[in-house]
């Protein structure tokens, strides 16, 4: 299956709790092209995992729209979402062990993950052994999770995620707790999958290097898309409501409540703090 496009429009998600509601996403706008590889980065609690859970259909957005391919996930029933996860959206949870039945072999785990797709017309499934080969686990079909090294475990989890040849692969923290060798193995596997199948890959990570290697890294901050890095360059992003988040290092110079005047000339936007006595000269900056 070729890659699926993803589009999030002003996505809001609020966790209801007895102690009070928590806003996890407060208007995310994000577009991912088919076959694109993207990293979602950001600090803990910024909303990365929530966004992935919404993309996987594990939760419904409180507001806004999430589209995967031609599907508006908010309008699908539980059964349709379930079918979608069984055929078109692969999910790899954080922690390899959470993705596999510990008492079943790798081959059986992959086989189980293919069952929904196997009953769906028009999907050609690859042999589990071939899938394991794709992630670098050739000949390990009979092994169980506990028989593998940490890096191999993560690739095994990846194999389960791509078992049904999904158009979108969502991977949560695939490289955490791995050494650089293990990390490279995992990223190699992801790139192979993307290259060979054209699968759209979304990876949640804390690791900036992972983001850099995937080519596009979207930073989620305070429940919004805060910035985006492409080709080694960082960009601020204008959200659907016209807001722009300043980079944290810039923002650190301006306490909350700081007033700016916005000047625009020759395609350059200049933010000028409201009073010279209040704001030192050196703290003035530009936003583009």
């Amino acid at each position: 299956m070729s890659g699926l496009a993803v589009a999030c429009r002003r996505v809001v998600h609020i966790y209801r709790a007895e102690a009070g509601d928590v806003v996890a996403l407060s208007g995310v706008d994000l577009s991912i092209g088919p076959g694109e590889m993207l990293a979602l980065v950001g600090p803990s609690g910024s909303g990365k995992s929530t966004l992935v859970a919404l993309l996987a259909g594990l939760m419904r957005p409180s507001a806004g729209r999430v589209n995967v391919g031609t599907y508006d996930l908010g309008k699908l029933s539980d059964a349709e979402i379930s079918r979608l996860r069984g055929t078109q959206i692969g999910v790899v949870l954080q922690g390899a062990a959470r993705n596999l039945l510990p008492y079943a072999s790798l081959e059986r785990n992959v086989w189980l993950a293919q069952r929904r797709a196997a009953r769906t017309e028009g999907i050609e499934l690859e042999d589990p052994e071939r899938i394991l080969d794709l992630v670098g686990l050739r000949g390990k079909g009979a092994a169980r999770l506990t028989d593998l090294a940490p890096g191999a475990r993560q690739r095994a989890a990846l194999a389960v995620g791509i078992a049904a040849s999904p158009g979108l692969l969502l991977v949560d923290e695939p490289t955490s707790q791995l050494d650089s060798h293990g990390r490279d193995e995992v990223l190699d596997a992801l790139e192979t999958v993307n290259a060979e199948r054209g699968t759209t890959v979304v990876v949640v990570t804390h690791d900036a290097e992972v983001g850099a290697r995937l080519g596009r890294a979207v930073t989620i901050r305070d429940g919004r898309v805060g910035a985006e890095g492409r080709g080694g360059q960082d960009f601020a992003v204008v959200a659907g409501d016209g807001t722009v988040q300043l980079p944290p290092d810039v923002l650190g110079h301006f306490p909350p409540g700081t007033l700016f005047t916005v000047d625009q000339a020759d395609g350059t936007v200049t933010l000028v703090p409201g009073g010279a006595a209040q704001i030192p000269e050196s703290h003035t900056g530009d936003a583009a």
Partner: protein
Amino acid sequence: MFKVVRGALRARRAQAATVLVLTGLAVAVAAAAPWYVSAAERSVAVADVDGARSSELVVWVAGRVEGSIAAGGTVRPGAEVVSEVEQQAGALVDLPGAGTTTSLRETGSIVSDLGKVGLRVVYRDDMCEHLAVEGSCPRERGEVLLSRRTAQALQVKAGDKVDFALSSQPPIEFTVAGTYQLSDPLGPYWALTDYGGSGALDPSGDGPGDPAFVSSDTIAALPIKEILADYHLRIPPGMFLDDLAGLRAALAAVGRDNGAWRVSTDAVTLAGRIDRERDLVGLGVGLAAVQLLVLCWFGLFFAVRHTAEQRRPDIGLLKLRGAARWRLWHLAISQSAVPMLFGAALGAAVGLGVARLVAGDVRQTASAAILSGVAALAALIGAVLAAIVADAGGMRAPVGDLLRHVPSRRRGWRAEVVDLLIVLVAAGGLYQSYATSVDRDDTTGLALLAPALVAVLVALAAARLLTPLAGGVGKRALRSGHVPAALGATQLARRPGTHRVFALLVIAVALLGTAVGGWTAATDGRVERARHELGADRVLTVQARSRAQLVAAVRAADPGGRQAMAVVRSLNGPATVLLAVDSARFAAVADWQAVYGGPPPAALADLLHPPAPAALSTPDGRLTLDVEVKLTPAPLAPPGADDPGGLGGGIAPTASDPVLVLLHLMNAAGDQVTVRFGPVSGPRASYTATLSGCDAGCRVLGVEPVARNFAGRSVVPEPGTTVTVFGLTGAAGPVLPPATLGDVSRWRAGVGADVVGPSLATKDGALTITAVRAARDPDRATLAYVVDSPAPLPVVTTANARTPASGDPRLPVFGGDRVPIRTVGVVGTLPTATRFGYLMDLEYADRIAENPGADDVPQVWLTADADPGILDRLRAGGVTVISDKTSAALTDRFGREAPPAALRFQLVAALAGLLLTAGAFIVVAAVERPERAAELAALRAQGLAPRAVSRVAWGGYLGLALAAIVLGIGASALAQAVTRQPIPLFVDGWNVLPVAVGPQFVPLGLALLGALLVVGAAGAAAATLLVRAVDEESV
């Protein structure tokens, strides 16, 4: 998928094994119950038939056939009459395989020179095979076989002639062919007849005399219009066991108008009893099985629900991959269903095996096996359903929840509603059972369920309180710095499902308490009843020549007087027992139970046997009687000493018949010996006679002046006939010395209620006996008895014994004439008594009883340590043992009835239930162990002492187990206090001895011990394993 399931089962083998064992237990009980009921139904019926009275195994058809002087009748051959009876009576009742006996009878009197006895002459098929005959069996017309007792009373022997007197017919002369004693008086041959010794059941039976046996030809030739006929059928025991419906159909003629024939039997009573026993077994076992099944299902539900916690991530994973619903169920349920299937197969085999081992084989193996199979299948289906319900929560949960490591602890409203419903149903059921228990005979399911309902109420209430209570204790302990206690209590409060397992444990312990209580009460009840019904540890029913011989033989067999006692038991109606005992031995031999109350047995013996004048006796030899006979005007009332002629108004005699003076004696064997003096007449003179048959000595009973009637038989002389005895001398000296003859307190008239006379007076060392007039001539008597026993007879009565509305209290001692009694002591009840009872001294009763009946049952009571040689010595003394019962054997027979069968199953079921809940407890602990171990290991890493970890673990699990045990025992005690014994101790409702009510501490202690062993061990195991897991985690 199979491989995946196999992998899962291997990985979680402990949980799978627990589910296997729990299901095996449930299915074993379910499979065992129908087989057990089938087998027990038969074995209780066998026990019933074994313990049945002979009259319950016999059908009696009574009627009449034509006699020789009926209109147009002739003297027919006896065999023809017998055949007619067989045809007519046999047509009314058709019992295939039944043995039959035909009897013919007629009532009259046998008269000899010295006496007259009212009795029946009887022909009965094969009678001589059931009689011990001295002489020959009567085969010819005119031959008669008399009982040894009758022959003795008439003082005739084989070859002598007697007359058979029928009203309005001239006497018919019979020849005495011999004498008999019944060889098997309690056997079925004599059942439902009034010929044998098993009790006269024919209310129309007249006269206490033993029957005289004759040939059928003799009866057929009697000058009577109708011959009374009896036709007895002995029911084959198999009909009671296997064909009660067929038996009932065959007995349809009972109570119906069958013209000249009347059908009666107690078999219907036995059939009803068997039905009740079977119902009780079915109900008792069924309810115990259902209780255990429900407990098993709940236990399985909790066990599966806890193991389901481990399956939640698996289910979440499959859901994440969009797996189909059926695949989710397949993975989840297979992990329970596969061990359940294996457990069921194992359980069914074990259940059937154990049931077969305990209850034995059944007759209809196929149907019992099918029923067992169906029950086992139902149990398995219930188990699988419980597993489905337990796993259903996981199936409904969102993927996110399932994938989260910690499950939601939120308690749904459904659980609250289920709890409320259970409480309401239990409370309603308890009230209903309490309300219906007013009717003591009501053995409905509700009454049986009451203890379980109490247990459910207590358990749920306690379980509800457990969480907040543990939370409170935890907070307080934390504030006061008791970290282990705080941790233990807090974890108890926060552990999911703890309170449910706790409730289950409480219920299981309570049910064990109830089952042990029922079992011990029934066991004690059976022992007490057996002891009571026999009266001594071992009781021989015997035949003796006489009561005197019985006493003498027993005293000779046990000269020490501590191991054996002669007893004669008789009935006065169905509810009153008369017990005549050799009172000097009573305290040592009788099994006196404290519950009887009243004075101690030794004191009773003294009360029953006050001092009395010594008996007068004389050996064989020549006797000389110094006597004077006068004819005076007949007194209307006994004259005073100064008025030997009686009060005015008498009439002078018109004629004087020859007067004889009879001296009545009794030899050591209890045979009566009579010496005849005279004819005596006129002034004082000496008369001699020779006494024989007394050997060393006969006890003098009394002196009786008699006259002769036209036929030469002895009759009471004319009123006014006065005989004065001045002395009786034997070879060894005076037999009746003047001091005795002159002491009016040493003489008495007969004690019979209707006896009139004689008038007795003493003066100057002489006894004057005067025949008096009476309204009814047959009431007149002239026998003057020597007083050598107290009159009235001292008796000890049960507290409820009734006193007569008017007149002196009297009792038909030994089933004969009623003798006056005097109550000297009152007790709660007496050995062998049912409702009313009287205890008396056998020797005194025998001395005072006149015309004793034939319904007494001579017995020898033995102590447990009686010398085995006593039996041989008894036989040597002329006593024949016809039955030998021990209280242990009787206890054993009661043990084969329905209540013990049901209680046995209840006990096994309760133990199984306890094991099961302990298993569920272990599963819960095992499932939560990794998580708890990680928590405690983390605390240990932060500085919590290893000892504190141990205390948290032990306090959490063993504390929970102990609390459940204490509450369970409390619930059981409460159930015993507020409900009656759920299963009756005896199916016949026997309640002569009071049953202990309220909480019974010994059985509760036993149940406590069992619960400590099982549940305590489970708690200890859980705690130990947790401590070990924490140690491993901390390394």
